[in-house]
């Protein structure tokens, strides 16, 4: 073994790295140290240095990060993830609000459109009626018609007793001829002197075939 080889092998005296050195090489290193005073001195010096290193190693063997570092890190960790959660909640809330606003706007628009369509249909019916010649009743009994005409102007029927507003949504308008006295069956006030007069009445008939509201055409 040469001195250069000894320097790379002979100084390994213990530990994991010594296992890596083959037994034959270890023996050769020992023989070289016995013959070469320089290498023997080097080995002896290194042993002294190794002892000093072991002292240093032992003095730092149990060294650990101070607890304050863990506290700082956990504080930062909490802050970071709390902030993220709050941000996520805010984003979710913003999206929910936006969705609700869009839904509300859509429903409002749809309702408005429906009202407009129904108003148009009623207007059309009213238009047909207005083109028809005035009936005797309508011209002769202004006082009785006043209430219904007022309702008519309001653009709606007068609900019959026991009917609910939502029941008239899908109803059909039927124009019928009847004696004025029959209006009392709908709970409407009738002049007793003119109960036998024939008049035309618009009935709002529900899907069950029952009249839900009444209107006296102009």
């Amino acid at each position, binding site marked *: 073994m040469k001195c250069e080889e000894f320097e790379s092998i002979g100084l390994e005296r213990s*530990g*994991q790295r010594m296992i890596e050195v083959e037994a034959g090489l270890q023996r050769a290193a020992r023989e070289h140290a016995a013959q070469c005073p320089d290498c023997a001195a080097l080995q002896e*010096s290194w042993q002294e240095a*190794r002892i000093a*290193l072991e002292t240093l190693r032992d*003095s730092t063997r149990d060294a*650990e*990060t101070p607890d304050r570092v863990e506290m700082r*890190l*956990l504080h930062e960790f909490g802050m970071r993830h709390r902030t993220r959660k709050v941000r996520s909640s805010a984003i979710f809330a913003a999206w929910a609000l936006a969705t609700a606003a869009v839904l509300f706007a859509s429903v409002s628009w749809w309702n408005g459109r429906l009202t407009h369509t129904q108003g148009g249909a009623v207007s059309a019916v009213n238009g047909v009626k207005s083109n028809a010649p005035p009936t005797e009743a309508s011209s002769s009994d202004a006082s009785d018609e006043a209430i219904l005409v007022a309702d008519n102007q309001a653009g709606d029927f007068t609900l019959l007793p026991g009917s609910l507003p939502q029941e008239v949504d899908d109803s059909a308008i039927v124009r019928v001829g009847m004696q004025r006295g029959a209006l009392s069956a709908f709970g409407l006030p009738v002049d007793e002197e003119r109960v036998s007069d024939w008049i035309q009445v618009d009935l709002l008939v529900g899907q069950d075939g029952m009249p839900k509201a009444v209107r006296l055409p102009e």
Partner: protein
Amino acid sequence: MSIPEQDRDDVLLRRAAKGDEESFTALYRRHQAALYRFALRMTGSTWAAEEIVQDVFMTLMREPKKYDSGRGPVGAYLYGIARNRVMKHLERLPRELPLEETNDDGAQVREIAVNRFTPAHWAEQQERSERVRAAVLDLPAEFREAVVLCELEELSYEEAAQRSGCPIGTIRSRLHRGRALLMAKLEILRDAPRRVSAAT
């Protein structure tokens, strides 16, 4: 004995990234001591080692997705970050050296990693430890790393090479050179003029 799946570092890291504080704490407690010791032995400063460990875990907290399991275990990844921080610290060190701390009586404060309340009969050992600590810290960074990893951390050449990211041969030669320099600094070379000239 295999580590349970839920306790594996990569699993803990994944959970920590989702905000699981317990997983982060477990990961920290598992690796802090080794990283701290490495940083302490490389820098010789407790505050620097503390800052480095904190920095390593802050990086992990900020950018957990930077870890790529295909490139090695979490421990090696953390060590790589710590090593970068140590090298940056050592690069800055010459400018920071003049700011030496002193005691009330004007004596220089040396931040040593030994028990300050060592009994008197340990004084000699402490002095020796201080001498070798100063000698190790005086080594150039790459030789110091080889000495710290192979002599103080007691890693094999292969492990030291993996941690340093260099071939085994490089670690061997750095260690050889580091030892020679260390012996010269400790002035314990005996009758070996050939090695003295090599070490200086």
